[in-house]
């Protein structure tokens, strides 16, 4: 009788890349809800746009590379990239921002390097950095959370108004009525004011900063869910957050009137998203647990340095890209100590 002959192991856990990606998508739900709650329909519309573009570009790239469309489209990795980018860009940004972003993420950052698993840089962050440099105006026009516009959620543009803004129709309301600076931008351009003065004088900081805190809390929730489900480990996020917190505390402790306090650094901007959803990207990050810690520390330092002394208010994308570059190097020197060895290979020396 013909029995198939296979080598061990003969069983495997019911696990798949698609399941991993699905769980990541689920973990991004709280952030989507928080963004929609505070900033309106924009994020939802952009997610829809981004997913559509992502699947089209992915299918296009797979077709050009003569790969199985069904097999690779079903892994869900393009959707994760799409949702990440859609949640990172300003909710009222025009539609073509997402289109350009998805093209650079899927076609350039992912498939030109060989597709899933081969990209040295995080595709969503490549797209974000490219957009930020190419279209600084569109990319910095964050609409203000509803608390600054009126008493309730009603003050935000309606779904149809949002659609009109995103598709830039002539009937659209002027975007300027809704947009404002983000807390990090306010802090960046505080000029000669001290930190306390800017907190008092800026509406964004004194009244609305909790909107950003809320979004960060939502990202944090999603991240903890993923760690709990063992989709990722705590190493990179925790080391990044702790590093950022320590650095911010040191400078804030030394000169509170010139530096933002550490909780602002953790609570606003893309810190939480970066820590749990970008720094943990396995493809472009460091691989061993030790390596992930080093990777996270590097991210924390770079984010603080770029935020504080750089030209851009937020820094997660640039920090991630720089650390992606260093990941192979980190991997070389952070191999774990294997069973029965006194030292890890990297510290053992000798020929490599």
């Amino acid at each position, binding site marked *: 009788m013909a029995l198939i002959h*296979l080598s061990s192991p003969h*069983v495997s*856990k019911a696990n*798949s*890349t698609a399941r991993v990606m699905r769980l990541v998508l689920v973990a991004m739900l709280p952030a989507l809800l928080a963004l929609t709650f505070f900033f309106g329909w924009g994020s939802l519309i952009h997610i829809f746009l981004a997913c559509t573009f992502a699947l089209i570009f992915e299918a296009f790239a797979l077709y050009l590379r003569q790969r199985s469309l069904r097999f690779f489209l079903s892994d869900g990795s393009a959707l994760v990239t799409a949702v990440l980018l859609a949640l990172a860009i300003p909710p009222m940004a025009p539609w073509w921002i997402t289109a350009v972003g998805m093209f650079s993420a899927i076609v350039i950052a992912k498939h030109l390097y060989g597709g899933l698993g081969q990209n040295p840089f995080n595709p969503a962050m490549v797209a974000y950095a490219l957009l930020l440099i190419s279209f600084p105006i569109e990319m910095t026009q964050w609409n203000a959370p509803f608390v600054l516009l009126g008493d309730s959620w009603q003050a935000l543009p309606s779904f149809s108004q949002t659609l009109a803004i995103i598709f830039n129709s002539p009937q659209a309301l002027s975007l300027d009525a809704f947009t404002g600076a983000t807390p990090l931008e306010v802090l960046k351009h505080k000029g000669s004011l001290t930190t306390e003065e800017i907190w008092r004088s800026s509406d964004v900081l004194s009244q609305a900063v909790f909107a950003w805190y809320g979004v960060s809390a939502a990202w944090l929730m999603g991240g903890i869910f993923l760690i709990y489900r063992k989709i990722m480990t705590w190493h990179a996020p925790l080391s990044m957050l702790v590093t950022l917190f320590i650095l911010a505390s040191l400078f804030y402790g030394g000169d509170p009137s010139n530096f933002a306090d550490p909780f602002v650094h953790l609570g606003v901007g893309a810190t939480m998203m970066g820590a749990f959803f970008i720094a943990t990207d396995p493809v472009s990050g460091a691989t061993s647990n030790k390596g992930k810690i080093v990777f996270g520390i590097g991210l924390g330092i770079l984010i603080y340095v770029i935020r504080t002394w750089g030209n851009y208010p937020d820094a997660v994308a640039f920090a991630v890209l720089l650390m992606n570059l260093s990941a192979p190097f980190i991997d070389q020197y952070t191999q774990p100590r294997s*069973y*029965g060895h006194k030292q890890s290979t990297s510290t053992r020396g000798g020929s490599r």
Partner: protein
Amino acid sequence: MSRIFSFHGGIHPPENKKQSLGANIRLAPIPAQLILPLQQHIGKAALPCVAIGERVLKGQKIAEANGRISSSLHAPSSGVITYIGPQPVPHASGLESDCIVIDTDGLDEWSTLSPIADYLSMNKMDLINHIRDLGIAGLGGAGFPTDVKLHLGDDHIINTLIINAAECEPYITADDALMRERSDEILAGIEIIAHLLKPSHILIGIEDNKPQAIKALDQALRASTLNIDICVVPTKYPSGGEKQLIQLLTGIEVPSGSIPADIGIVCQNVGTTAAIYRAVFKGEPLISRVVTLTGYALGHRQNYEVLIGTPFTTLLEAAEVNRTTLFRLVMGGPMMGIGVNDERIPVIKTTNCIIAATEDEMPPALPAQPCIRCGMCEQVCPASLLPQQLFWFAQGREFDKAKQHNLFDCIECGACAYVCPSNIPLVQHYRFAKSEIRTEEFEQQKASHARIRFEARQARLEREAAEKELRRKERAEAAAKQQAERKLAEATPKELNSDEEKAAQIKQLKTAASVARTKLKKANDALKNAREKGLEGIDKLETTILLLEQKANEAQQAWIDAGGEQS
């Protein structure tokens, strides 16, 4: 109870052990034909010591251990040897290997056994040889000849004896059943090993999913005088791996490239201890073992006492296999077992389990997706390797890097492949890389061997040439010396003995003188000719002529001196 440590990684696959624990160990039928591979153990294959057509009795030796690491074979039942030659055997390669085939006669007639009444008063060497003679090999999985391990006390200080009762692979319950039903035999076996190795600690490592076996061992232990600790470890695959169990029970890691005995530890499987008991107290060779027959394609999932050499077919039929649902046949556990595609293969000493799985139970592997370096494999690797990197290197044929990343510390437990979300058959990649590296090393060894031989040959040729040259020189020197002596002898005018000799000498000198004169004349002619025609080299000719003149005069003089033309 001693402290339990932990090891890195590990997985919790579904245990699937309950199915086969419903009934006691049952005796499997004697098959019409027993097939006994000569190689059932690690080391060299045994050498047959019977001939085709010979009738053998149950327990009679049919193949002799060949070398230090080898094991002998015995007839599991009485019958006639009908064939010695290649047959399909349980091996991952699926290749055939030499076997002895016995057509059983159903009488199951024992040969005379020689039990040892009082092993304590026996010479240890003789006791170990007795165990070796009865073909005892490790029943845990590797089939390492037991006597070799019992000799470890000779050149190592053994302070800890670990009895491996973890049985961490899913489905397998052979050791569990054995402990439940024959814990006294196991204890007696342990006492024999302890007598031989004299360890200061004896630890039995057992997973906490075998409460009845623990209870049975505990009870048996009460009757024993030995100080044995039963160490209950948490159920986690692969806690039964030798290195992992050592780490669990002692907190010590076996250094890479060493054996446990180097750190004072010897491990034995529980099944082996029972086999040692039988060998010593009953004189029975290793001719049967407990095998778990399980999987949902079987009607009776339970443990059987099976004669070594019984074909799988006999067992599957005894367990009422449903051939319509049978999809996969595995020897061993689902994590490290060997896929079998020919059910005629026999049970060997290391066959602890046969899984007849349905398609639902062990579905075919899904197509592999690209590795996303998620690191789940790294989190479960009991050897603390970086499986994702090893995979990368194996795929890219960067074997040096794979070796640098400690590929050879991989125990092929399969935990990485089990958790891989991309369904990558990681263990296969590692096996491939390992075999490639081994082949490469073998080739290198061969090449360096060839180089050494070439260099040796070259050196030999040079040496021979030098010797030849030396001999030639010696000969030349000797000849030169001889000639010089002769010349000297010629120079000193000899008293010539007879007139004849004298006349001969004069004649010789006369000839020389005339030859010299002729040469001079020719040279003069040449000179004249050259002058007439104005050719070059006249000076040279002139000097030659001067020289020839001198020689001619000398020859003339010599001839005159010798007495020629005296008148």
